């Protein structure tokens, strides 16, 4: 808990040796500097680059919305989906985005519970990214259905037909899992925002801003009672979020794992999907944090190379888990002796979609191995370039699992290829516009770094700060 935590690694017998940990905040930045700098990002005049970026991303967002409108007005056929590939880019994109949405809550909740202090400078942005990724993800399952106007059939509302949902269907579990995850993530994120919103409110000069931030800050005064309630609420939400991080992608993987289709029907999917999601999520956090810090240079004192280094290590770890899962799948397909299973993996590797499989293997398994080298983990440009591979690779992974599996399953007479249409491509590209637009709005109007938590990891926050060491 901020302010009361002791340094990890301080053991009773180590009194003689001073443990030197790299500082989490560089350049001896003070509490005041942190508040004023982070708030200034929100308070200053809107920079030109922001307008330029919005000029790109807003039209992309509109393109996405236009594509969706066209889809609803015309039919799912405007995408390339067909028989046998009933799911293609739609569900690929869904799993891709929902996977990205894992890093934020993981950083916020699991690293919070495990007292990883370095999380404090990245958790806010990562959580925001989670929410925006889940928003992008939600578009696809909602719009991929043939009759979106009937999609409320998925909700367990009593109706005159007396028909309930099919609780055996993993797709229904998915609806519940994703909506729960989104709700809890929003609450978690917003709860963490409250003290900082109050800070901004207090610094506001215009009345309108003061009112708006004041409403959003929910009357936060920073009193002791409020902090106590806050700490308890945050801990509870962290506890709630932690299993959700694991459950959402496990449930998403059940969409495939509980089916009978060779290549889908496998028990390895839940852990493999979760590892992949963390892998892809961290890559996306780095993808957006590195440019954000480049734009606001002083942020490098808060989001340090040390942070980047740690995240790269996580990417290396989870990427290797994913690589292990790929190899294990191949091994089990061979060892299991089921000819359909063998064929499915054979076709993945050397079938008509071999290039997607090769791209997945290279991007997810080979490329991150560069992170064994400290140079690549600490050189920000290299990091940014390398994490694009997991970003792409995780999309290819989902494409390989979904589209290529369906294109060749049990009955060769029904085999067929999937080709994306311009609507597929524009919708997917448009979700990046939406994601970036939301993120730009976020950094413009909300403190993108959790001020009070960063302050808590400053040396000055230590109650024993300044005391002579023995």
């Amino acid at each position, binding site marked *: 808990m901020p302010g009361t935590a002791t340094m990890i690694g301080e053991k009773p017998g180590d009194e003689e040796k001073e443990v030197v940990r790299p500082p989490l905040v560089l350049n001896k930045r003070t509490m005041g500097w942190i508040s004023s700098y982070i708030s200034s990002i929100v308070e200053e005049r809107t920079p030109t680059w922001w307008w330029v970026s919005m000029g790109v991303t807003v039209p992309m967002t509109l393109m996405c919305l236009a594509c969706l409108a066209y889809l609803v007005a015309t039919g799912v056929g405007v995408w*390339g989906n067909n028989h046998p590939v009933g799911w293609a880019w739609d569900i690929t994109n869904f799993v891709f985005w929902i996977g990205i949405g894992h890093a934020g809550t993981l950083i916020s909740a699991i690293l919070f519970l495990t007292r990883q202090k370095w999380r404090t400078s990245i958790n806010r942005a990562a959580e925001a990214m989670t929410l925006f990724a889940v928003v992008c993800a939600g578009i696809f399952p909602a719009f991929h259905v*043939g*009759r979106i106007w009937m999609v409320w059939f998925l909700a367990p509302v009593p109706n005159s037909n007396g028909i309930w949902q099919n609780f055996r269907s993993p797709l229904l579990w998915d609806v519940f899992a994703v909506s729960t995850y989104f709700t809890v993530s929003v609450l978690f994120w917003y709860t963490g925002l409250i003290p900082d919103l109050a800070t901004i409110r207090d610094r506001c000069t215009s009345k309108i801003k003061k009112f708006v931030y004041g409403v959003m800050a929910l009357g936060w005064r920073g009193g002791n009672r409020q902090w106590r309630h806050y700490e308890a609420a945050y801990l509870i939400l962290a506890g709630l979020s932690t299993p959700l991080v694991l459950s959402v992608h496990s449930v998403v993987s059940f969409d495939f794992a509980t089916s009978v*289709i060779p290549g889908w029907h496998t028990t390895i999917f839940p852990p493999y999907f979760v590892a992949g999601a963390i892998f892809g999520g961290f890559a996306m956090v780095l993808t957006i944090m590195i440019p954000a810090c480049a734009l606001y240079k002083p942020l490098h004192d808060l989001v340090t190379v040390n942070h980047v280094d740690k995240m790269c290590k996580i990417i290396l770890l989870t990427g290797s888990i994913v690589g292990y899962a790929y190899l294990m799948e191949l091994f089990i397909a061979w060892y299991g002796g089921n*000819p359909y299973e063998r*064929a499915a993996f054979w076709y993945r590797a*050397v079938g008509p979609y071999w290039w997607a499989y090769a791209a997945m293997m290279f991007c997810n398994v080979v490329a991150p191995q560069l992170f064994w080298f400290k140079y690549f983990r600490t050189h920000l440009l290299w990091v940014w370039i390398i994490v694009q591979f997991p970003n792409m690779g995780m999309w290819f992974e989902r494409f390989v699992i979904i589209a290529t599996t369906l294109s060749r399953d049990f009955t060769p007479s029904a085999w067929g290829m999937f080709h994306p249409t311009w609507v597929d491509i524009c919708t997917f590209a448009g979700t990046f516009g939406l994601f970036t637009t939301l993120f730009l709005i976020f950094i413009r109007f909300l403190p993108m770094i959790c001020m009070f938590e960063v302050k808590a990891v400053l040396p000055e926050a230590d109650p024993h700060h300044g005391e002579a060491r023995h």
Partner: protein
Amino acid sequence: MKKIPAHPPRDVRPGLWRSLRELGNDPEFARHLEAEFPRGAELYEESGLSKRDFLKLMGASMALAGVGLTGCRRPEAHLVPFTKGVEWTIPGKFLYYATAMPTRTGAVPLIASTTDGRPTKLEGNPLHPFSNGGTDGFAQAAILDLYDPHRAKSFTDKGKTTDAAAFDAFLQSVGQGGGKGVAFLVEKKNSPTRDRLRAEVERNFPGVLWAEYEPLGDSEAEAAAAAAFGPGTRLLPKFDRADVILALDSDFLNPIETGIGYAAGFSARRNPDQMGAPMNRLYVVENHFTLTGGMADHRLRCRVSDLGEFTRRLAAAVARRTGDPEIASILGACPKAEVHFDEAWITACANDLLANPGRSLVLTGPQTPAAVQVLVHAINSALGNLGSTLLGVVTPAPAAATITDLAKAMASGAVETLFIFGGNPAYNAPAELGFAALLPGVPDVVRLGLFEDETSKLARWHVPAAHFLESWGDARTYDGTYTTIQPMILPLWGGISELDILAKLLGSAAPGGPELVRATFESLVTGGAVSTAGGPDLLWNNVLRVGFLPASGFAPTPLNFSAAAAAPLAEKAGPAPGGLEIVFLQSSSVDDGRHANNSWLLETPDFVTKLTWDNAVLVSPATADALGIRANNFGKFEEIAQKLGNEIDYDLVADIVEITDGKRAIQAAAIVAPGHADDSLSIALGFGHKGVTALMEDVGFDAYPLRTAASPRVASGLSLKVTGRTYPMAQTQEHRSMEGRDLVREGTLDRYHGNPAFAQKMGMDAHIPPNISLYTHPALTSAEQWGMTVDLNTCTGCNACVVACQAENNVPVVGKAQVRKNRDMAWIRIDRYFAGEPDEPEMLAQTMMCQHCENAPCETVCPVNATVHSEDGLNLMAYNRCIGTRYCANNCPWKVRRFNYFDYNQRPLDQLYWGPLARKGMADSLKMAKNPNVTVRMRGVMEKCTFCIQRIEDAKISRLVEAGPTPKSETPISPFKVACQQACPSDSLVFGDVADPKSRVSQLRASGRGYTMFKYLNASPRVTYLARIKNPNPKMPGADKVGMANGTPHGGHGATHDPHNPAEAHQ
């Protein structure tokens, strides 16, 4: 405005009262009366708001609210009942009438189902002697032709719309002219009424030229039979008596070649379990894969040009053994040719035929040159088959001139008025006649046709033809049975029939269709030996009722082969061998082009190539290599995958080739066809229409320009060059190989006798551990449990079931671009696999529809419970509940579920992508074709085979009626058939109650040949396949490879190859 119902003022002494309280009319009662009606109702009375005020206020508010919303009114619609009850009609019930579809070989006897006076479905007439109740795809699709909105709808004179009266006046003037220069060009029809009217026309107008033309006619067969056996002789093969059959370029199992009836006789003898007679054995010699070739026990690829030499050598082998003098004398007349054949094949085949004298049968196709036909007759004669497996009848059809004779007369200017009934000679006449160029030289050309096609454009008059379901007629089926054609509906667009025109030409005052046909019938009955007991009216009505006149077949005649008369024919050399040949095929989609506007048929895949919406030049893999024709023009990624050991055959992009005979050339896409003869090409006729209807544009390639009258079957001495241009093609099935999976299971007769249950333990099925389920399934409680068996031994893959399902279940058409995107909507499909070497493969057909799994993978994954199981074992689709996640289709191992990606029923096929801008709604006439008992599905909804639930429910409801007050369980459901089963000409589909051990389906399911697919998934399908059994002749070359599509038997299960390695399974 609700008014409080004030009680009427009362008399002091009421005459009638309903209660004592009313009599008293006390205040409490008045209050009670008030309380009956909604609170506040009385306020309207006392509010001071007059009706006028109210209307003003309401009007103003409506006007305000309605600004800009005035278009949001629901359109007014009326449901108008019949003002008079229609005789026999019970709302919601079909009425059935017997009729027939005329074909070039006779007629397909039919039963038409009609609803509210419109026919919606055609079934085979099971009572007819030349039918087993089956139909072909063309008959099934005839309904769509009837309602086709592209049909010609008006009389035109020199391109201007006119009316029937003007045409009548014209006919009168022709009649008054004495018939000078009058000629007729008609399609071949065995219609006694037309023959009768023709005789009258010829009597009234001497010098009339009556020509008949069929692009796919059987004039060669007729000529040969006439020479060999006497004029008018027709041979009727009796497949049920034949143990060994040799088909030489004959696709006799294809119902479209000879009409229905052959497949039934053949399939009856194809049963390995039959008592008293051996299973038949089929040898086929052909240049391209046909349905018959797919069923063959031994198949030899042979160029059509070399067929004469093959037959000569076979005849020589027969002659050597039998010493038959007739065959020897014919052989003496036959020219020889230098062609290489596998002599062992010929010898072993001849020996097998000779070992079965009188029980064998040699057949050849109707267009095989007469020279070859007489050799075949000689072989049959030497084998003693005449009179046993081949019966002779005499057809009384009068002789007619050919189109060549007509063209000569036209060129000489002798023809002034030409009546063209049906056909399309401007498009399909033999190329050397230049018929289209001759037509403008004839002053008055009258064209009677369903469509304003190429010929109509060159004619003075176009007369809209009545469809056979709109007009009276008659026909003799192939065996001669007199069959009536009665209309089901008045002509939709005022069309008339050729009988009407002939009768008007003869000056009959307002002749009606029924009178014309009945007059023929009377003459037949009074002139013939048919008993008229009960009076002619009763007999006529009975004939109309059953659709045919019993025992009215052609007169049988003994067959005596006359070598002397046949020898001159045999001397005529066939087409010159050598060089590249092209064989002209009957299209499975458009026949000779007559169904070119039928979208059901265009979208029904070809039996063998699985092509839709196109035809193509077929070429063997070796010849394709030699000529530089690529199997597919796809990208680099696919090429690499192929190098990695995959068979990649998706998204066919074919090379366009140019084929020329020196004078004329055609351009067409070429595809590589496994099992095709080398140095030979094949192309289906009837495609490549230009400027007729929007639907026909850019559909296929016209092959008629290479076809001559002298050699209708084949053109030789051609050259081919690859143009370098490519053409995308739409196939419903792209992959050819079973990939070592035991989907279609087959074995030889020996293997079956050794282990009758061999098919149940093939491949993976031999390794399945006992199933222990953690989950108890809900019991299926209904007394009836529906299931189906598919006999792969008799299923030829003829598509009749596919089109029948489309007609019955309102399955939409999606168009070529959508088929290319794998979005075809067919609920039943025929999977076709090739096994073995690409040059000499086996072809296997497997009818595939929803398997109605008891433990269905689709049902568990639907999030909204839109697909569920019924108590009688059906896998149901609740369309209204479906939101279209497509999860069920993904999880279906058979991939039989179909998703409506666009509003295929509502949007024109060329406007699918236009969204709300597309024209909405289908043509009114097409709405009439829909089965009223089946939902027309909208977009975004999954659909699939329902086992024709509408027929099941109909039968169950009928049982309730039948059972009356007795418990329904005591009343059996009267037998009924599902649509695919009813259409199947070879009886391979059997549907019924699997809970009843006595039912046919139960007995077939219990057969040793019965197996279910993907057994290890434990889905428990309700569709059981019966393994295909081959009957190879062990002495034939390559006999060891017959029936080995699943590998040779070893160690208790069926594979020597490693089925686990798909790379190895590729051939």
